[in-house]
């Protein structure tokens, strides 16, 4: 259906205006809002480390020197000892598939 009486916008009449976005202005705006109950309501993000996806567990007793070496290697790389076990398992599986 045709538009009976469209109106047109003169883009030249609409100018972008400078608005202060400095932290000081934002703080003044926040204070003005708080006076009227317009307070922070954004859900707070959970603090701290995200839970690890590694929820499985193995029960391995190894020789003391092997335990020391695994511990040192994990510390050096900044990973959990489970990561080394996963890598060793991947190697074991690939060697079995050959």
């Amino acid at each position: 259906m045709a538009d009976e009486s469209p109106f047109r916008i003169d883009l030249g009449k609409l100018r972008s205006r400078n608005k202060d976005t400095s932290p000081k202005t934002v703080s003044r705006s926040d204070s003005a809002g708080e006076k009227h109950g317009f307070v922070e309501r954004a859900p707070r993000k959970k603090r701290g480390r995200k839970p690890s996806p590694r929820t499985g567990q193995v029960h391995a007793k190894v020789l003391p020197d092997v335990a020391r070496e695994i511990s040192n290697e994990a510390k050096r790389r900044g990973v959990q000892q489970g990561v080394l076990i996963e890598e060793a398992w991947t190697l074991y599986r690939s060697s079995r598939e050959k």
Partner: protein
Amino acid sequence: MPTIVIASPKGGAGKSTTAILLGTELAHAGAEVVMLDCDPNRSLTLWSSRSPLPPRIDVLSDIDESSIIRQIKTRDIDGNIVIVDLEGVASRLVSRAISQADLVVTPMRATTLDATIGARALQLVAEEEEALDRNIPHSVVFTMTKAVKSKQHKGIATSLIGQGVDLIDPPLMERAAFSAIFEFGGDLRSIPPQGNMAGARDNARAFSEQIYRRLTEES
């Protein structure tokens, strides 16, 4: 280009409907419109997913209080009209958006409850004007009005005008097409006929012309 903030701490006042009607009419009239969906209910995003967006409209979702000012500043450039659809609560997101507004529009139903809660947005604008030392033009539009105005409607209108509030005429009437736009997406020219389509288009166009007039008067 101007930033229009649609603000009311009252839920169900017609903010998203107002934003969509205004955005689609201004785009139809030739403006590039960026709509920022700051409502956790994602009303604009849902509307935009229903069908391809009309020409010259872009919708950005998931804007929060930490990103609102940056998002407005990035889009508030020549060639764009930015429309910010806010959540229906009193939050810091609302006060920050108002701080960047060239025009604040407060939709409210012509009821005492809507007027009472909607008035908080007007008080906030006044407070921010003082705090930021700049004029922030603001207007009220009645939404979901009937053809015959109730005594309550007339009383609230008289009271607002008496307090110096800029009341936009025409109001946005209760129309099947206005609510159906969320079902079909698009604009009043693309949705299947719903009731009096010509009347709905005339209403939305006249309202948008009033907004345009205010934007150009103030610039």
